[in-house]
């Protein structure tokens, strides 16, 4: 195993981690501020991917597609917030799970109806099509590096938004005391719609960026949604810092587990058995990590003050 290969896998892990962070940040923000568990977050990811693929195919520009993914996911988020989600804030988690599960069915079947079951394809933009030479001689996909870069930018942006701006102040206040915010004359309904649309836009962005690495199809959102759940459970639901740490932990653990475990088992058994056992355990690894974290810290690594 060469160092270059290991570095490549590590970067793949970080790329997966930052992509998960985009999903998890929205989920955790929505839970932290509104107390809502949103299963349909994966559908917003899908909306972003479809919007990007369609606009990119029509205009020939990935970047227009990316802008469209943000706009479409934010708009879809705002619409479902106004029509459905805001009726759920005062409900228990069971109702929230059910209603947002219903939204998944509607989004998925709706998308299948409109676009069919065949995947759409989205090309990596030509400017980022090549590889970058890293210090030490390894090369790495420029596009994947760009995803890592965007993930870092979003993390910094969210931190600035929440800790430095007026909107962020309201978000933090809304987290601790809805009535106080309402008493200050903030339109809490509008605030919630904005927060929901922001989370949706981040999910859409993630979907669009991943769409160019994989294919764009119905059902693409749910596996990512479940990983994002694992992320926020590990990080502590409601904490953006927890979402970042959890996302990187999950991304790197999952990628390196799939890479290293089969090689590790080769030390004890034949190559094909090692590949089987290694792959089976690697596929469960992040869930084991989650179980261990929760056994030690039931509120996750960075419990939000709720």
């Amino acid at each position, binding site marked *: 195993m060469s160092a270059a290969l290991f570095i490549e896998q590590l970067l793949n892990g970080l790329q997966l981690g930052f992509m998960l962070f985009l999903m998890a940040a929205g989920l955790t923000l929505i*839970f932290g501020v509104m107390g809502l*568990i949103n299963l349909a977050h994966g559908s917003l990811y899908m909306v972003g991917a479809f919007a990007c693929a369609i606009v990119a195919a029509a205009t020939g520009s990935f970047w227009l597609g990316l802008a469209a993914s943000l706009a479409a996911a934010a708009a879809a988020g705002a619409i479902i917030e106004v029509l*459905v989600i805001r*009726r759920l804030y005062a409900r228990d*988690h*069971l*109702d929230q*799970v*059910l*209603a947002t*599960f*219903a*939204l*998944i*069915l*509607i989004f*998925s*079947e*709706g998308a*299948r*109806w409109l676009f069919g079951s065949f995947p759409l394809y989205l090309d990596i933009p030509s400017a980022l099509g090549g590889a970058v030479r890293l210090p030490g001689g390894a090369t790495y996909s420029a596009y994947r590096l760009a995803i890592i870069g965007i993930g870092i930018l979003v993390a910094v942006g969210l931190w600035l938004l929440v800790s430095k701006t007026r909107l962020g102040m309201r978000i933090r206040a809304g987290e601790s005391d809805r009535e106080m915010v309402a008493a200050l004359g903030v339109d809490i309904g509008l605030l919630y719609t904005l927060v929901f649309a922001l989370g949706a836009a981040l999910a859409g962005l993630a979907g669009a960026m991943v769409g160019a690495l994989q294919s764009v199809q119905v059902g693409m959102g*749910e596996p990512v949604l*479940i990983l994002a*759940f*694992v992320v*926020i*459970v590990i990080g502590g*639901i409601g904490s953006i810092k927890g979402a970042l740490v959890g996302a990187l932990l999950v991304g790197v653990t999952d990628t390196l587990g799939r890479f290293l475990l089969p090689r590790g088992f080769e030390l004890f058994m034949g190559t094909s058995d090692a590949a*089987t056992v290694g*792959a*089976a355990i*690697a*596929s*469960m690894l992040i*869930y*084991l990590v*989650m*179980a261990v974290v*929760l*056994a030690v810290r*039931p*509120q*996750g690594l960075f419990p939000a003050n709720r």
Partner: protein
Amino acid sequence: MRREQTVNACLILALLAAPVLAQLAGEPFFITLATRVTILALAATGLNIALGLGGLVSFGHAAFFGIGGYAAGILATHAFNGMPLFLGIPGTNQMPVIWIVAMAAAGLLALPIGVISLRTSGVYFIMITLAFAQMIFYFAISWPAYGGEDGLSIYVRNAFPGINTLKPMPFFLICFSLLAVALLVFSRLRDSRFGAALEAARQNPERLAAVGIAPNRIRLAAFVISAMVTALAGALFSDLNRFVSPSMLSWQMSGELIVLIILGGVGRLAGPLAGATLYVLFEYALGGITEHWQLFLGLILLAVVLFARGGVIGMLAGRAKHG
């Protein structure tokens, strides 16, 4: 007789009458449909113990449903090819043995999952049970010995002493009897001391602890019992389809089980049966009109959650009463 009991009795009689009529009319397909309703109702009755009585929103009960399914599939495969399971233990095609193995396996799995998951509550509990189920799902997909992603076929439906299970009607009656037993168990459990403590743990765990009953031990027992009943349904489900695949373990399956309970009525005895009946009828009726029937299912479900809390039983029999 209370109104709810009348509604329950009508539902159960209708479930029994439907396949008999189908048999007379020479439409065996409807017997299979009724068997599907019965098995899904049984699975959801299991979940109803944890979710309805105990307020434990398990989003991972597909794990137990699938474990039951795989128990049936794996034992049947070994019985079929004559290879020992492990340590020289042979497979079997006898349903009673398979049921016991399915329930025991699910119970043993539910114990550690329950212990860890019950350290948390609320949203964490929902997500953790989901994550554990995903863990088992991915294991089933990546472990090639029993079909991996492609699943496992049961070439001949498993046997029950003295009954020809290959015919639809006898198999339906086996499933129906098990559902009847499960409903009886559910109702006795609910009215017992254990049930009182479990329902109190849902309504107010602080109060329960303050009178001296530790809520989590009660919840854990309920979680394990619930998993075992759902696993029994899983074993029947793979015998119905003569096929078991990772889709039985999927998160959509967990979601469907919750949906059945919500459609029917949370914590109500016949809620899962009402929900399963409605669900399978939707699937059949809407599925005949459009292949996108799930879109309409989504809309109906959304309407039920937003506007018709209490489900079918709630609409027909009014609010739940607690002695």
